[in-house]
């Protein structure tokens, strides 16, 4: 929207958040979105989802549509819509709560069952600022992530440590080319843009 390059590339991806409610999955996103977006408007969340863009290189902008569970996971009531066409997922656990890693693992199973095959999943251990209370060894979580082919990070939503890196790494791993390609031939109707001269018009 701001500086325009000669041939800017732009791709949009859907990212879903999962994890127990106390692990701070939401504060990670809060940190990510707020830190790098000074004119943060919360109303956008209410309407649909959080969005945040990342500048991958001079020409390439990636926009994340970040879907929060909005509490629907509490009673195992997440709708299929939540997983549909998700490109990436951040599954969060709390390094000071051993059980939270087990919950995270079950979410990852659920993702592998429900979501796209090529979903990029990042496992994120939060509360790195509480190192003294650590219950989950970094090596154990790392080993699990490697085994499952996940990105792995330990972060602190409180200090911001490691947060940006999660999204940066996901952005780098996403299939940029194919997304740009598929977006260039949209067949669906944009309900916000009524038009009598629609491109789908057959009779011009």
């Amino acid at each position, binding site marked *: *929207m701001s500086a325009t390059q000669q041939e800017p590339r732009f791709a949009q991806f859907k990212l879903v958040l999962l994890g127990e*409610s*106390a692990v701070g999955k*939401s504060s990670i*996103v*809060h940190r990510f979105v707020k830190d790098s977006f000074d004119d943060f*408007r*919360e*109303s*956008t*969340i*209410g*309407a*649909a*989802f959080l*969005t945040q863009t990342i500048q991958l290189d001079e020409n390439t902008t990636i*926009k994340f549509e970040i879907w*929060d*569970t*909005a*509490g*629907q996971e*509490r*009673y*195992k*009531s997440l*709708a*299929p*819509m*939540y997983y*549909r066409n998700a490109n990436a997922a951040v599954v969060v656990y709390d390094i000071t709560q051993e059980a939270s890693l087990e919950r995270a693992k079950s979410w990852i199973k659920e993702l592998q069952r429900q979501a796209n095959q090529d979903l990029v999943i990042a496992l994120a251990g939060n509360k790195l600022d509480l190192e003294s209370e650590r219950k989950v060894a970094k090596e154990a979580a790392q080993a699990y992530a490697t085994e499952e082919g996940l990105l792995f990070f330990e972060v602190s939503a409180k200090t911001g440590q490691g947060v940006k890196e999660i999204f940066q790494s996901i952005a780098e791993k996403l299939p940029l080319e194919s997304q740009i390609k598929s977006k260039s031939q949209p*067949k*669906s*109707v*944009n*309900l*916000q*843009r*009524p*038009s*009598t001269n*629609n*491109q*789908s*018009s*057959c*009779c011009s």
Partner: protein
Amino acid sequence: MSIRRPSMAERRSSMTQEGSLRPPVVPHLAGLEKPLPETVPEACDVVIAGTGLTESILAAALAWQGSSVLHIDANDYYGDTTATLTIDQLKTWVERVNKGEIKGYQDAVLYIPRGNEFKSKDFGIDLTPKVLFCKSDLLSLLVTARVYKYLEFLPLSSFHFFENDNFEKMTSTKQDIFTNQTLSLATKRSLMKFIKFSLDWESHPDVWSPYKDASIETFLQEQFKLEKAQIFELIFSIGLCNNNETHTPEALARIKRYLISYDVYGNFPVMYSKYGGAGEISQGFCRSAAVAGATYKLNTKLVSFDPKTKIAQLSDNSCVKINEQIIISPSQAPTDSKFLSKQNYEIQRLTVIVKKDCTQWFHDNESAAVVVFPSGSLESNNKQAVQAIIMGEGSGITAKGTCVWYMSTIETGKRGRDDLEAALKAMEGSILRESSDLDTQDYFDNANGMLNSVKLGQSFKDFVPKEKIQYILKFYYIQFTSIPHAGVVNPNLYRKNSVHVEDDVDAPDRGVIYSSLPSSEISYDGIVTASKILYEKVVGSDDDFFDVDFEDDDDEGSIANNLESAIAEDDDDDEHIVEPGAAPVEFAEDMEL
């Protein structure tokens, strides 16, 4: 009834003070702002049972208005009576219907031939298939509530019309009318005159009021001198009426609905949501409600409600104190309930998945079509129309190389089933003929540059198919509803369910408000009206129904204000037939020659 409470925006003044000139509506941000409660809340303003589309819109409207909502569903999936189901889920559904566990349905039959390999998850079959008119109250609401952002909508421009054993392409646009060589000049003129009139028919009572109680067929014959073929097209395809006896004003409203929807987003009158119709849209509104703070719990049923203590007992052994109202779908009525209103109207549905892509029926780059079988057009000599929605693989609801045919009729009993089978036979014959190699005589319809198959217009009386249609499944069921057929535009029809609080009857549903089961309408019309009336029963008025003002997103530009008129529309005048949208349409202007 309660007094109107402060809206979400008013209640949350603390959130809106800083940094913003115009205080935006800021939601609860469930899960972002504060830790989530661990159990079902002990008290809430409203409990809603059933996540069908009407109830889901209601839940979202109430949540955004500021009510605390607990939304439950006895099923382990969203959507209830308007759900989109996988084949495995369908199997369970059929069993449960036949055990009497799902109220409002009967005689469900599911036939799955052996030998077909398929993945249940590749299919999403709608229990209540529908199409969305491009100018309608639901469309406006999807935009206002931003729920469209969770969904994808695809265009549908092919409306086929079956007559004299033929499939005809409709001549519904001015291009079609001008270029149709089978129409006489006089007919063209009459048709144009009528279309122009119908776009503004309400302002010309002098023309139609003498025919207020007469059939639309009589009206079109006498007032516009139209011929039967055009009359039937107007009544059945454009108007999607069930029969030619439909009363004039109602049919005119239905015809106008189509015409004003044309060219709003392009050269198509309707759209449908990808990956499943009403089931997807329900999920979207449930998500919207959750974002505004509603609590969701599937697999949970209402056991009983006590109107004196206002405590609802749920199937997970929890209790909820309800400050205001409890609204339940008739499909989720508790065992031994006594106040369910009579479901006097019958809808028969036959859904098949065929191993054919059926692209012959779709417009270029589209994956869906509507096929209408008017009264008397079928071998069964049908009295009522059979309406069919066809969805190919691009609709996201069916596997590659397959197609879903949703057929429905309001005909009752054995006749209804015979009509559906006759329609199925006609469609089979047509698709076999069109996809056969016998005849490859395609031509270009020069006028609008569309590739059209000449086979569409040929009788298939002489055609003997070499192959047989292969089915992945065949699925038949009867659904009941309290909503009269084709009466969806009249809000009065939804006002009937009243709350029973008689002291002398001991019943688990005393004091609950019932919503209604889906109507026979194949568009979404009537659903927003139904939600609004329920909303009014809880809040006292529908003045602030989805009165939210979200800030615009960074990249989407300004919101289409012109689409929002339909929601703001006043339906307080109960005697009046409410018409979604009323703005003039572009092509009305240049129609005169």
